[in-house]
């Protein structure tokens, strides 16, 4: 058995060394978090759970110590107070992170005995302080436990907050046939590994560690116009080609190193990748090569469109109501509806804008170019305030190419109307609703000035 373990680790190491130079600068810190609650002394697979764990961890620490840029540490919980004391603060860091500390880890592992309760959440919380502050490091916790939280803590929320602190949790549950409903860990952490026997446990943990050191990784580069991977902050949806459902959603991120972040994507599936830019960009049929770093390049050159109302607002409601329909040039359906005084990113190219002012404003052929902000300014509308002593019918018109075009139809039921209009000359045609004479039609020219009110009494 021992030989086999050594063999596996050897393979792991060989793989690691093969690609070591590329990962040389990044430190990987692996904290073993070991459950020493009373139940760990139970017999399991011709031995005891704690003994299986001791052996596996000793070997792992030993092997990992020989690797450059890998540090290990050991925290345990439940070893200080017997379970009948229900000591929920029973957690301690036995071996802090260091290089070449496998001997210490071994000594500590054999100097402790399982006794107490299972304060998983608190232990996880404490691990945040175990890792040195180092934003470039990969921080991993390998939790080995045989039970679920017994101190009322919520390991889910803790593990999530650890993730935000750049600490990845890999929980192992050994010697328990946990059904997934009982173990909420499953839901919140995603990957947890249920080891039914010692053999499986050894294999899985070794594979996981191997994966940590040499995983299948994927880097998506969002390329700008020049083919440089400078675009970022767009959601990347990985659809499983087989199920046609999304499997991963990650915001594309450029790390502190200034490169696209590495993703952990299961290489088993074939993917269709959708970059959620506006409009979205799709790349289908992505096959990932296992145990390698896969690079996926997608062209998503973007620029910004800033829509601005010039001049003071006569009425905030009127101004916020102005929407802009954005179309790819020559296409009918608008890909976005953008509000004024906001800036939005679009793929580079030509767009047609339809601005829902009164009258509508059409701006054709707007160029969005790489990393630039195209600013479209239109004057802030003015306001026509119509006061009607009696119900009136009619409308507001503009002359376009000598033709009268109806811009707004009066609301016969309202005796007072406030209408936002773009600056310009208008014709108001109206007549008392209940008049019996056409000659009561009144045709009135008026002018609207940006940001000002024009009041008309009928």
């Amino acid at each position: 058995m021992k030989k086999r373990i050594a063999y596996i680790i050897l393979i792991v190491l060989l793989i690691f060394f093969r690609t070591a130079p590329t990962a040389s600068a990044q430190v990987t810190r692996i904290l073993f978090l070991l459950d020493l609650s009373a139940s760990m002394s139970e017999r399991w697979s011709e031995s005891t759970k704690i003994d299986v764990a001791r052996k596996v961890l000793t070997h792992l620490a030993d092997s990992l110590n020989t690797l450059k840029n890998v540090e290990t540490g050991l925290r345990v919980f439940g070893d200080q107070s017997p379970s009948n004391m229900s000591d929920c603060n029973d957690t301690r860091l036995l071996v802090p992170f260091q290089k070449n500390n496998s001997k210490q880890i071994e000594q500590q592992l054999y100097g402790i005995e399982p006794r107490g309760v299972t304060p998983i959440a608190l232990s996880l919380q404490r691990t945040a302080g175990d890792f040195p502050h180092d934003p470039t490091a990969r921080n991993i916790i390998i939790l080995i436990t045989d039970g679920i939280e017994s101190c009322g803590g919520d390991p889910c929320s803790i593990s999530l907050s650890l993730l935000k602190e750049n600490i990845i949790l890999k929980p192992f549950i050994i010697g328990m046939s946990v059904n997934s409903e009982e173990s909420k860990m499953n839901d919140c952490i995603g990957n947890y590994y249920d080891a039914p026997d010692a053999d499986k446990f050894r294999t899985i943990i070794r594979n996981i560690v191997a994966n940590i050191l040499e995983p299948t990784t994927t880097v998506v580069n969002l390329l700008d116009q020049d083919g440089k991977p400078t675009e970022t902050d767009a959601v990347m949806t990985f659809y499983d080609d087989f199920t046609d459902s999304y499997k991963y959603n990650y915001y594309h991120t450029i790390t502190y190193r200034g490169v696209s972040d590495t993703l952990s994507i299961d290489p088993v599936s074939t993917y269709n990748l959708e970059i959620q830019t506006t409009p979205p960009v799709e790349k289908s049929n992505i096959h990932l090569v296992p145990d390698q770093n896969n690079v996926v390049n997608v062209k998503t050159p973007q620029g910004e469109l800033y829509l601005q109302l010039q001049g003071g607002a006569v009425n905030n409601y009127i101004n916020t109501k102005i929407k802009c329909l954005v179309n790819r040039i020559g296409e009918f359906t608008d890909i976005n509806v953008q509000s004024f005084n906001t800036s939005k990113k679009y793929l580079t190219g030509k767009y047609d804008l339809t601005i829902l002012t009164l009258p509508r404003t059409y701006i054709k052929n707007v160029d969005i170019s790489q990393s630039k902000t195209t600013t479209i300014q239109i004057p802030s509308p003015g306001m026509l305030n119509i006061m009607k002593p009696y119900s009136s019918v009619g409308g507001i018109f503009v002359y376009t190419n000598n033709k009268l075009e109806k811009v707004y139809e009066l609301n016969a039921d309202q005796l007072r109307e406030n209408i936002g209009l773009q600056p310009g000359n208008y014709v108001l045609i109206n007549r008392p609703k209940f008049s019996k004479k056409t000659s009561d039609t009144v045709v009135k020219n008026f002018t609207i000035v940006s940001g000002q009110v024009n009041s008309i009494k009928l």
Partner: protein
Amino acid sequence: MYGLLFISYTLLAQTHTHTTRILFQLDGSGSMKELWDGQSKFNRARDLVSHLVDSIEKKNPNIEFGLRVFGHQYYYTLNNCKDSKLEVPFSKNNADAIKTALGKITPQGNTPIAYSLFESLSDFPVDSNASNAEILVTDGVETCQGNPCALSQLFAKRKVSFRPFIIGLGIADSLKHEYDCIGNFFDVKDEKVFNHVMNVVVSQALNNTTAQVNLLDAYGNPTVTNLEMTFYDHFSHSAKYNFIHTFNDKGNPDTLHLDPLTTYDLVIHSFPPIQKDTIQLSPGSHNVIAVDVPQGTLSLQIPNNKDAFTNIQCVVRESGSPRILNVQDFNTDQDYISGNYDLEILTLPKLELYNEEIAPGKPTVIKVDAAGILNLSTSQQGVASIYVDHDGKLEKIYDFGSIKTTATVNLQPGNYMLIWRPDKGKQSVLTEKINIKIVSNETVNQKLD
């Protein structure tokens, strides 16, 4: 002989609130000396016009006459092609002046009809309220290479609406089309017909021409009203009258007074507008202009909308057309010409309804749920966007871009996926998916950490 004329003049007694102007233009070319039943054509015309101005002026003192003559100043061998003169300009009570001027004229010259017509345009004072008419009497064809048809094109180009009455005295059939294209042409063969036609033409020019517009519903009944209508001059394309269609006391389409000398293009300002081109009124009579305006109502409703300021807009297009016809606010009703429309409702997510039928009779009601509000707050800057999950396919419906502290968006009730990633940490793995359920008129406060 003039009995016929007097009957129709009784119509003239009614007072006109606007001025009526008639320009008589007589051919004074040499051929007008030709005898017609013992008297020269010119003298026939002279006597007729003299009598007419006299009797009309007595009945209607508001009328203004003018007299232009061509071909009378230079003998035809001189080939003067600019021989045209306004002998008596427009004014009230000038019948005597016209008679006197006519008495002094001897026909002798060329026939520069096109030139003279062109010159006559500036005889009319600028007065958009006036009814203007011109009656040209000639016995021959253009002898100065002018082209009355080309002239009409020139008028159209210059956006002048001008259709004179042209009375031809024994003109060869082959030449008649030269006058048809510029005005209302009447051919007279003899003296009797001349009198009669002159009578008709003058009464047409003088009488009130009236019109009514029948806006027909889907069943052909003139029940539609309260729509704005613009009468464009067909030639100049300028808007000549703007009215709002009205039913009079009797519930019939009200009578309109329109200048009969203009050809009109009528636009009814429905959604979409309905245009009826090349309307020619018969002068001196009541004209019925029927336009089909079958309408239906689109009623957009948000029942139970608690926040009036979250009102939403609906972009209305004719089915299949990319052109926006109207943008209608919710909680309003609007009439459209019945037919199929594409509706784009600017909620989040957008609601698109294609080929929605707006039929006459019952209103087409489109109901949309009131929106709910999503408030996001965070203690750290990050990026966020909202998706709808269509059986595993994600559709982005809103992109917040970068959020520093707070952000708000109105969403239709339903389930959404919010995808969020804090900037701090600079890792994709920090991406979080949060399921959001939006309920009408309620606010969801979501903290992002």
